[in-house]
């Protein structure tokens, strides 16, 4: 799973208020979000964020509202200027770019999908999809050809000449997705892109995104407040709270080893059997039960297999070689809901 780093965020602080720069030191000295607000009238947006985002993977950034996730994603293309810190994309410092360089960067390197779609209401679907290309100065014929390709790819063929207001929310977001893909940017920022859609449509859109990703291998940075969504699509997950990174890791790591009660509370209600795979609950050794399970089979599928084969142990294999053994008991242990300490007293804001 080793891959090169595409986007690197280093010591990023964002403090909203007139003297943000002066407040960084106070935060470094341990001032909390609430004390900063009460004593200095400044709002802590991001608190020393460090994330390395690997290329060609889906990086999910999740947190509740007010945790700074939308602020963070807007720093990557500098829709918001940081108070201090560094953002490197392919080793290049985004914060050092001139206005012209930044425009060029936004046109070619990084595109964005928005929570409320942000389509141009006076343009048809095909002209909306071609918007990024038009800004780049692509000629009309090529623009339409490439837009058409993406419209077909997201399943909107036949709606080219409709206006956004004539489409349902899910269809509008497909336009938003096609618009972002049409510029051929390597990095895709998705700001709660599916949060405004109802659950069935949201699942559809997640599938579309995963399908596209299998083929395109973009670096996708996906913001969400929905853990199921994060676990479903994320290769890596970062959890933010009050502008600080609480935990980062693969979905499995987060479910198995939540860093604190905040995360524990987050994962309390998810379907663990659908997230965890057999390798995450296996032990060293092997068994002669006769059942082999591939290492990335999720528990939800693995357990019926074992019941069906009437065994309580199975070998875990990777590329055909046995790498460990898994027991039914370990699986049940894995999907048992963790107990939060002092459950009633945990409050989040």
């Amino acid at each position, binding site marked *: 799973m080793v891959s090169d780093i595409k986007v690197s965020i280093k010591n990023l602080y964002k403090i909203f208020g007139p003297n943000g720069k002066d407040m960084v030191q106070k935060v470094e000295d341990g001032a909390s979000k609430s004390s900063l607000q009460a004593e200095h009238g400044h709002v802590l947006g991001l608190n020393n964020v460090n994330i390395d985002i690997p290329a060609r993977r889906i990086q999910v950034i999740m947190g509740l509202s007010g945790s700074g996730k939308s602020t963070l994603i807007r720093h990557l293309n500098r829709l918001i200027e940081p108070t201090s810190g560094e953002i490197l994309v392919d080793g290049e410092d985004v914060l050092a770019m001139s206005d012209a360089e930044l425009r060029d*960067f936004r046109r070619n390197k990084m595109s964005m999908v*928005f929570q409320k779609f*942000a*389509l*141009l209401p*006076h343009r048809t679907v095909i002209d909306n999809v071609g918007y990024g290309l038009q800004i780049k100065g692509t000629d009309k014929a090529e623009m339409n050809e490439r837009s058409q390709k993406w419209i077909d790819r997201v399943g909107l063929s036949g709606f080219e000449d409709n206006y956004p207001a*004539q489409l349902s929310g899910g269809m509008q977001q497909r336009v938003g997705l096609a618009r972002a893909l049409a510029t051929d940017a390597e990095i895709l920022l998705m700001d709660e892109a599916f949060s405004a859609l109802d659950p069935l449509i949201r699942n559809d859109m997640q599938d579309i995104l995963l399908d596209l990703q299998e083929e395109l291998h973009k670096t996708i940075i996906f913001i969400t407040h929905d853990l199921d969504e994060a676990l479903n699509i994320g290769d890596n997950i970062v959890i933010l709270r009050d502008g600080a990174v609480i935990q980062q890791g693969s979905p499995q790591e987060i479910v198995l080893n939540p860093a604190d009660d905040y995360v524990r509370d987050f994962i309390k209600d998810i379907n663990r059997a659908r997230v965890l795979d057999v390798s995450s609950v296996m032990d060293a050794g092997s068994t002669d039960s006769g059942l082999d399970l591939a290492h990335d089979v999720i528990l939800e599928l693995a357990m019926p297999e074992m019941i069906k084969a009437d065994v309580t142990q199975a070998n875990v294999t990777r590329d055909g070689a046995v790498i460990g053994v898994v027991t039914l008991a370990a699986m049940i242990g894995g999907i048992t809901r963790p107990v939060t300490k002092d459950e009633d007293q945990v409050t989040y804001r």
Partner: protein
Amino acid sequence: MEFLDKFPDLGRTTLRDIKKSIDFAFREFSNKYGEAIEGFFDPLLYFMVWFEKLLTNAPWPLMILIFAALAWLGARSLPIVIGTIVSFVAIGVFGMWEDTMATVAIISVATFVCIGLGIPLGILMSRSNRLQAIVTPVLDVMQTIPSFVYLIPVVMLLGIGKVPGLIAVCIYAVPPIVRLTNLGIRLVDKEVLEAADAFGSSYRQKLLDVQIPLALPNIFAGVNQTIMMALAMVVIASMIGVKGLGVPVLRAVSNQYLALGLMNGLAIVALAVIFDRVSQQYGKRLQKHRQGGHGV
């Protein structure tokens, strides 16, 4: 208690001196630069004279045809086109054709001048809060100060005639288009603007592709208001030598000619209704894409 009974004003002599010196200074200015300023407006005057002649000298059936065609292009509504034709025929029958053409001429020119000045100013205002803070009170004054008050310096500077009339009309009619352009651009959805930025729009691209198109309904409401207010100034403008429907109204007022006043007044109303309906319908058509409904 004399102090309380009478407001301690500056005193008659002082006040007279102040007024005198202001009048004198302006008269000096007018003497010195009046001719140059008039010269500056000469091309505009020639254009207005030419345009008025064009409208009054054109054969009336052709003009009615043109008005009907414009009404159709703007409104795409048969009732409005028929109403336009009936109104202009009635105006002609009652002997007000020439005055009406003169009024249409000055209203058209005033509207174009107001659009040409008002929309760019509105755009600048939407970009800068400071400019908005400066311009808004000026617009308030322009809309509330009695028109006769600013007729005085305009007439002192430029005499009477079409150009001072046009300036008077524009002072009164330009505020709504400035206000609504500014408002329309400021109301453009923040997320759409963010999208424009995220895709790397330059300022120009953002203005032309996003801000102006999305502000268009408001801008158009401003154009409509500007036309209406220009029409409202027709009578006052006729006091300083603008030909048109205002002249007979003025004559009717001073001579108590009820019928003359009524007829010309109604002709102004007819023009107002036509301009209003056509421009409103056009504005509505511009927003057709906003109609929802998933029916395809």
